[in-house]
């Protein structure tokens, strides 16, 4: 644990007024990924395994973008939020691996 700032100190943050541009970019990205995902399934003729990995990849990219920008996880002072989500995701990976392995077995 390298984190050693004293948390009881008020965080002095510089005032930056963010414009909406970044968030709109994330929105457009999310929309595009969503449309591609639905289109890939609606087309229905593509390789099944490829589509599944494409869908999962796009979902992860979209989720990542939304969490980084909309939920401000890219901002400073988000060490523990990241720990929280990463820890949760770690457990989820175990769980999902379990579900998949066990239904294949």
């Amino acid at each position: 644990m390298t984190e050693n700032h004293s948390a009881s100190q008020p965080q002095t943050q510089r005032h930056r007024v963010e414009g909406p541009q970044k968030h709109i970019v994330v929105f457009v990205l999310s929309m595009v990924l969503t449309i591609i995902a639905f289109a890939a399934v609606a087309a229905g003729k593509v390789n099944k395994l490829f589509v599944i990995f494409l869908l999962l990849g796009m979902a992860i990219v979209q989720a990542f973008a939304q969490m980084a920008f909309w939920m401000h996880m890219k901002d400073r002072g988000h060490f523990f939020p990241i720990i929280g989500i990463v820890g949760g995701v770690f457990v989820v990976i175990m769980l999902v691996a379990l579900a998949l392995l066990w239904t294949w077995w």
Partner: protein
Amino acid sequence: MAAHAHAVKRYPGFWGWLWDWLTTVDHKKIGILYLVAGGLFFVFGGIEALLIRLQLMFPMNDLISEDFYNELITMHGTTMIFLAAMPVIFALMNAVVPLQIGARDVAFPFVNALGFWTFFFGGLLLNLAWLMGEVPDAGWTAYPPLATTAYSSHHGMDYYVLGLQIAGIGTLLGGINFMATIINLRAPGMTFMRMPMFTWASFITSALIVFAFPALTVGLVAMMFDRIFGANFFNVDAGGNIVLWEHIFWLFGHPEVYILILPAFGVISEVISTFSRKRLFGYSTMVFATILIAFLGFMVWAHHMFTTGLGPVANALFSIATMAIAVPTGIKVFNWLFTMWGGSIRFTAANLYAIGFIPTFVMGGVTGVMLASAPADFQYHDSYFVVGHFHYTIVGGLVTGLLAGIHYWWPKMFGRMLHEGLGKLSFWFYIIGFHLTFFVQHFLGLLGMPRRVATYLPNQGFDTMNLVSTIGAILMTVGIAVFFVNVVITSLKPRHAANDPWEDGRTLEWAIPSPAPEYNFKQIPLVRGLDAWWKEKMEGNKELPPAEPLGPIHMPSPSILPFIMGVGFFISGFGFMYNLVFAVIGLVIVLVCMALRSIFDDHGYHIEPEEPKKGEVAA
């Protein structure tokens, strides 16, 4: 349990006293509430254990019926783990962690009270099963289909599912609260690597709670939907699968084991270091080992399922992952031994418990490694060997550690010293009784006795060892009874414990009066190193250096809402079993309380610090 000077409006008499305790948001009082409730449930669980042992004293004994026996083992396991061990852990965390990090309270005092009352009413709901005559009887692991309505049609398992669900919400809230407290409320200078080991252990335990309990929540929801709304998660005929429950339960259940034992590790680190007059050997390694244990704890759950039929690959992987946990645990044991090495060891009751912990836990640990070996586990699994093993870790480890912690921090919690002689007497009864009870159980398992059997046939070589085990259980009971006598005698004595009653206290809590004043620290201290109070004492300082000027101290207001929300959950739990209208009413009560809490801002109140009074500092 006397209440001390309170700056808010107080009502006189018994009702005022009761109101004070029902509405408190003070972490020290909530700690005491946890201790009392945990102690109460511990007595229930203990009586259940004693009945189990008396039944198994002789072959084909018919002291209690088979049905009752299954109810006893189920309630004993569930009560001891969720309603006795967890709250006593939370009691120590509440009593100690804010003091150790130099904070005035936890991050969410209201949520802290809510966590307690939710846990308490969940536990109450579960134990009301006894009064209602429909008691859970499918084991504390509640494996379906035995736990589904097809084979357990009465409401017993509903009490289990709903009681644990509600208690689990309380535990989750506690976990979040302590994580946030430790992250945000450390005093200036208290970096993570200067935190006392117990605080570290509490932090990691809280993290485990946050990541493990939701899995249990979902498991219980699935079980509840199956039982009450006819879902098919575990209904094999409708495509359900019973192994899902085992996976989810143990994915929670194994981290739960570390949730239980890590605080005990923390207590031992504090107690041994104090009574050896030495700093903890290899502090940073200890921290790292704790984190590693927690991390590995999530990757070993299937070692509870070696015989379920997961296949050789899974069994091999989980065998090796489980063995790996022995390494950080071993590091801890040797670091404790070398903390004492070169020290000046004082044998107080607290330290006796802590020293007793080490060999006992090591024995539980090594049988754990034996169990990790899947092919040999085919023999141990679900036999008395396992019963011996987990009682060595949970009783010999956790309970011994908690008793060490309770003796150690009792003066800080109550301002009185537990009687040393009685403490030592209780220790010897307890530890000898413990080993008599559980050591032989390993051999019973190896001789072919399965666990959870209501009785056993004679002439199988089980008789003598079962008798020995029961005698041990009685000795243990005597030990615990002596401890309770000690508590009663101590409560009748005047409250005059010194700030640093063990004289060798190292951490911040020993720098303030015993019991700690409502606001803990008159001025938030400045922490200048690991073992901050020891450092100041060694430099000849009588007080901690302050990090802020003297000024009015802001305190949160007491509130009855947490109690009402607990009642709401309780009503809704009953409603799910008997009448869904009440389930809705209960949940509406909870939601309304949440809204009220949000709407009405808590402005708190201020305490004006007085000049140091002579009476506050022990002579």
